């Protein structure tokens, strides 16, 4: 039995997407991964809280996959957090529904990796920009895994993107493998994790 993974995709214009569409297509083939396209499921932003909470309860690992808009997620994912991570469900007294689960960000940025450092034009590292997600996971009693990040997507060729998608797929396969210890992932980024362990796990 694979570890159940819920992939929440937030991209408002998939028909214009070069990266996320390919990534999510790659993820769909992974055993144990369930994809929920938030803009497709709730085009009028009327998120069904009970439905989403039920989905969360069924999965061990939650992946937020989205482009990096204004140093954060597209708006529907924020709406999702505001509504679904309810007091008494995700935090506060009795709010332990997510305790022990894991959260991972899978993000694409137009800017190059060099832009995300103290000397770059975005001034801060991705780790700093992702602090709100990290702390959200913390408050909900979830483990925040190292993020999967694709930088400089504007410069990536279609072939390069296909290669990244292959990496993404392997990462998700590793994470879905129940023998992978999510509490012991000592890395800064998830990128390359799947390729590194591919031989050991032995598909």
């Amino acid at each position, binding site marked *: 039995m694979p570890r159940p993974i819920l992939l929440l995709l937030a991209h408002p*214009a998939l028909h214009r997407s070069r990266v996320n569409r390919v990534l999510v297509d790659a993820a769909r083939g992974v055993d144990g991964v369930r994809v929920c396209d938030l*803009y497709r499921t709730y085009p009028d932003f009327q998120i069904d809280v009970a439905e989403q909470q039920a989905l969360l309860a069924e999965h061990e690992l939650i992946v937020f996959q989205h482009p990096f808009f204004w140093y954060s997620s597209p708006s529907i994912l924020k709406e999702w957090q505001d509504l679904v991570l309810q007091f008494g469900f995700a935090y506060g007294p009795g709010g332990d529904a997510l305790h022990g689960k894991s959260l991972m960000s899978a993000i694409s940025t137009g800017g190059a990796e060099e832009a995300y450092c103290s000397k770059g034009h975005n001034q801060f590292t991705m780790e700093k920009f992702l602090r709100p997600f990290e702390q959200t996971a913390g408050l909900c009693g979830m483990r925040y895994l190292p993020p999967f990040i694709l930088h400089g997507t504007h410069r990536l060729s279609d072939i390069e993107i296909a290669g990244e998608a292959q990496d993404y797929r392997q990462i998700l396969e590793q994470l879905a493998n129940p023998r992978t210890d999510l509490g012991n992932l000592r890395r800064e980024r998830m990128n390359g994790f799947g390729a590194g362990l591919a031989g050991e796990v032995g598909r």
Partner: protein
Amino acid sequence: MTLALAIEPGAAAVAAGGPADALGYALVYLLAAVVAVPLAKRIGMGSVLGYLAAGVVIGPAGVDLVGDTSEVMHFAEFGVVMMLFLIGLELRPRALWEMRSDVLGLGGLQVGLTAAAIAGLSMAVGLTPLPAVAIGLTLALSSTAIVLQTLSERGLSDSPPGRRAFSVLLFQDIAVIPILAALPLLAAPDAGAEAGASASHIADLPAGLQAAAILGTILAIVLGGRLLARPLFRAVASTHLRELFSATALLVVVGISLLMGFVGLSAALGTFLAGVVLAESEYRHELESDLEPFKGLLLGLFFITVGASIDFGLVFERPAFVCGLVLALVGVKGGILFGLTRLWKIPKATGTTLALILSQGGEFGFVLVATSRTLDIYDEPTGMLVTAVVALSMAATPLLLLLDEHVLQPRFAKGSDAPEREDDMPADRKPPVIIAGFGRYGQAAGRMLVANGIDITVLDLDPGTVDLLREHGMPVYYGDATRPALLHAAGCADAKLFVIATDSTTHSIRIAGAVRQHHPHVKIVSRAYDVRQAHILRGEGVDETVCDVNGGGLALGRASLIALGYDPYRAERAMKRFERHEGETQRMLFEALGDPTRTLQVARQRTADLGRLLEADSESEDTTRDSAWSTSAAIEAARD
């Protein structure tokens, strides 16, 4: 004097007799009402006083155009019967049950104590005990017609004193029956038996059968109202002939009146009962609005005949004596009622209004005087005197209420009585929203409101729809919302919002006009077929319109885009953007209304805009309009 000249042709017809007789009388009565009532209202006295004054003018004391009014009055009393039917319609059985303490306690003590006090006073001025008791019972009753008409005219029907007054009147109406039955006992033994028998057609039967007949009649009214009335009204309503519905309504009321008279019960009581039974019916508002004009006319006629029947000869002979008796009557009745209201812990302000409004003698008084005279309980002059006192006390009521309203109530408002509050019984349902037209469109809107906890009343013209929806527990009523009387009956005066959801464009425009004209305060939201109709509706005073084409069509457009492979969110945005553009176009066209050149200009301009907008929506080169989340520019920049 101009009045006398104006009605001369009618008077001639009256004098000549013959077929023009009835019309001649009608002319006199109608003209008197049309002249006197607006005058009375203009000087703030209310319509009842106006009718009474008109009666005095055309009666024997004035220009004497109508001769003997007793037959007309008998006919006009039917207005009181109708009024009680309409009151019954307003009152659900549960509301009636909640009033039981007021009806039995307050009403019972009022009648008992007042009758005893007046009988005592009568004996003090030299009458023997039996006639004194008869007069006491006669004068203990108040005038349902005057009180209720005055209450509704002053908007007090639903106020605490209004509801209490109604409870007392209800007891009195019920009490008339045993009083009529008891009068023969007060007569000299030899005169009594025969006259008493004339009261009902079943009086010759043994007591057990009489009781069975009475019970059977009441049962027949209740069961008939429950089981027969609905199919009957539905069958009539589906003919879509309005006059036939009115005829049926009248038929029901007249039929019940005659039936009650046959077994010797009060017709007013019987129709009241029938009204209560029909209060839950979907045809309630339509019945109300159909009977309302008849009731109003007959009551007016009744007041006129009361005015005409005042024997001013008697009054002028001993003015001080008659006035003293009127004052005594008003004083005793009012005093006893006020005392009772203190006992009931009713606030002084409410108690005062209640005491004054019920202080007169009533139309049942005239009936009891007539019966007493038949039974020879007292002599002719005494009977004339009692009749005059009752009529004058009726005329005094509107004046007393003016006194109450302008002198007494302001004092209570200032005084320490103000914070004292009464536990009100629940008022009749007054939903804030009325919906006209309840097809699929209206149902969607209405059910959404109900789902949000908003109380609605629904008016629809299709008996099938009405039946079906009532089975599902929706508050749906049969009726045409263009009729002012129906709007009134549905509670439009108290509504916050009127929703028009009919599918006929011409009909919805007429409804909008009627609602706006009669209820300027209420907000109107209407379905509109297209832009043109939306303009017309707004011209009629509709506050907000929603176009059909947009509502259904846009959703269909969105579904089509998704079917063509658009992502749902993209389709949603495309729909919203198109909708906003349409809305703006509508607004601009509305502003350009009446200026053909400008209208054409706007139309062309907006069509061109739309063309550009649609191009931008597709994957064309021009991305200036919708470049949301487009990365092409950024990619270009990155490659440079």
